[in-house]
């Protein structure tokens, strides 16, 4: 079957934090068969080329989450990702990289403590007063389990966490993996710490409101957990359970209803004024001036009682639908 093998040169990002001043890239020539995984490529580098090449591996069955790396910036679970598929995607030029270069310890191995710290913050376990000698099991119905969506499938591999651009800029942000865990246990009917978790995840800089909505996490997850969907659920739960405080982010979300009820469209000027409050508007004066100068906005847009907004046709339908469909309030 050697005819089926593809001759390629695989690059790997190399770095030893103890001895190297700068990282470097090394090339390894090898043949890759159609059923081989990225983990097989890493094994080949270590076993056939350079025994010092370092990476984490354990179960080889997509369940321990140890072998998650990046290839050309794409998060992959090495024991699940087919190598040929990846070579096709990147035109046979691939570079194996650690999940986070700034956290690299040696080659593919990173210091994942930031991930575990974030995870621990959301209390990723069922918090409940349970009789030490219970008479029966604490069972969940299928419906109760399904309410957790597929959040229980998370294997803590870190693929979403290290794909998240918000987390890269803002180190305080909990990030998609911790937020999935927050949802998982808050949605669990046996748990009693839901409110505490919702309060934590409602905090500015830390919680769900710092998600940039890029969907990198949904794309990165090898278990198809779709973290951003759970972040969305947490947003809704904060309003449902009365945890949401009135702040710039929550008013920005709720303010959409106000505009849509009035015009059908979002009133772009009003949403900024409503979210910031009149006192906060000083921050936006320069931007408003720039936008006015180029004709993007008009002087009367931000002034109350002067209505310069376009309106949609059949606005009454939208108003009625808001009245009969809205379930949350701020």
């Amino acid at each position: 079957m050697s005819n089926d093998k593809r001759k390629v040169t695989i690059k790997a990002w190399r770095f030893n934090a103890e001895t190297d001043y700068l990282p470097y890239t090394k090339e390894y020539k090898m043949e890759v068969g159609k059923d081989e995984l990225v983990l097989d490529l890493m094994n080949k580098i270590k076993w056939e080329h350079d025994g010092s090449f370092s990476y984490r591996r354990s179960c080889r069955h997509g369940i321990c989450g140890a072998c998650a790396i990046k290839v050309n910036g794409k998060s992959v679970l090495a024991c699940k990702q087919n190598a040929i598929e990846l070579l096709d995607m990147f035109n046979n030029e691939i570079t194996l990289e650690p999940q986070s270069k700034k956290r690299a310890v040696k080659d593919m191995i990173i210091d994942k403590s930031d991930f575990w710290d974030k995870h621990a913050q959301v209390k990723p376990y069922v918090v409940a007063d349970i009789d030490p000698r219970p008479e029966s099991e604490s069972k969940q119905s299928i419906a109760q389990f399904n309410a957790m969506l597929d959040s229980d499938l998370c294997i803590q591999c870190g693929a979403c966490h290290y794909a998240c651009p918000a987390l890269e800029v803002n180190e305080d942000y909990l990030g998609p993996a911790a937020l999935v865990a927050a949802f998982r246990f808050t949605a669990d009917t046996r748990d009693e710490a839901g409110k505490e978790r919702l309060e934590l995840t409602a905090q500015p800089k830390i919680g769900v409101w710092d998600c940039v909505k890029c969907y990198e996490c949904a794309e990165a997850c090898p278990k198809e957990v779709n973290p951003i969907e759970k972040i969305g659920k947490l947003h809704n739960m904060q309003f449902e359970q009365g945890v949401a405080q009135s702040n710039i982010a929550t008013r920005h979300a709720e303010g959409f209803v106000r505009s849509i009820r009035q015009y059908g469209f979002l009133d772009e000027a009003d949403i900024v004024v409503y979210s910031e409050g009149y006192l906060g508007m000083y921050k936006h004066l320069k931007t408003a001036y720039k936008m006015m100068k180029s004709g993007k906005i008009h002087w009367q847009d931000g002034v109350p009682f002067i209505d310069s907004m376009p309106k949609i046709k059949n606005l009454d339908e939208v108003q009625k639908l808001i009245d009969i469909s809205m379930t949350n309030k701020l």
Partner: protein
Amino acid sequence: MSKLKYALYTGCTAKQSTPELLSSTLAVADKLGIEIIILEEASCCGASHLQDFDEFLAHVLNARNICYAEKLGLTMITICNTCQLNSAMTKHALDTNPELKAKVNEKLAEVGLEYKGTSEIKHFLYALIDEYGLDNIKDKVVTPLSNFNIAPFYGCHNIRPSELHHSSNGGENPYVPTSLDTLIDALEGNPVDYSHKNKCCGFHVELQANHTSEVLAGNALVDAIDNNADMLVTPCPLCHLKMDTYQDDMGKVIGRDIELPVLHMPQMVALALGCSEKELGLNFHVQKATQIFNDVSK
């Protein structure tokens, strides 16, 4: 080729802060002989923020918008990535969850509408490429963009989550997107290859996490500039607003001078098809872009 006809969902920005997006879209459609009916009844898609507040309400309102395209028996085209995402998410949720669809239709019945799921939802970029065809566009180019190095900026909500978009975006790979590059090629411009082309612009946290937003947009623009871009082009007016309006602010945050015109995808096409200066509306940009109209034919 039979004449293409679409129901256009304008979204909010094209009706307010980016009038140039609407005028250039209509100008391109006119030049290519594509018939457009504007969905004047359509309301805001919620832009993911209404969804954060009340997901069910967002589904009801988006389903109502789609109803109007269904009534016309047309594909609904969008000119904003975020409108595309949120409309497509409602469509997907309703088409795959009969219980939710019934609940939404119960509300819609109160205003005499019913969501059926018969209309496709497609961004104008992919309608141009997959349905009108790049070769046909190429035939209509009167002022080739060969003077320009153009950095394609894809915008998250057209390419991720890929599973949701695959039926409407020609199977675009979010890690190696090509649609905008091929469109730039067809207009004889020089596509700029740079690593931030498929990254986030930070628009959605502009208010509550301003620093994050400035860094993300700034990094992308600087990457394009460092790869010799003369302009950046995006199919999303929210990416446009972020990247056009705040260049001086993000420059301060990341410590670099940033000056790069940011065009809407239809403006770029309009430029190559020889549309008028007024239709292009480059005067509406915060970062000076009007010179592009004069430079194109030099």
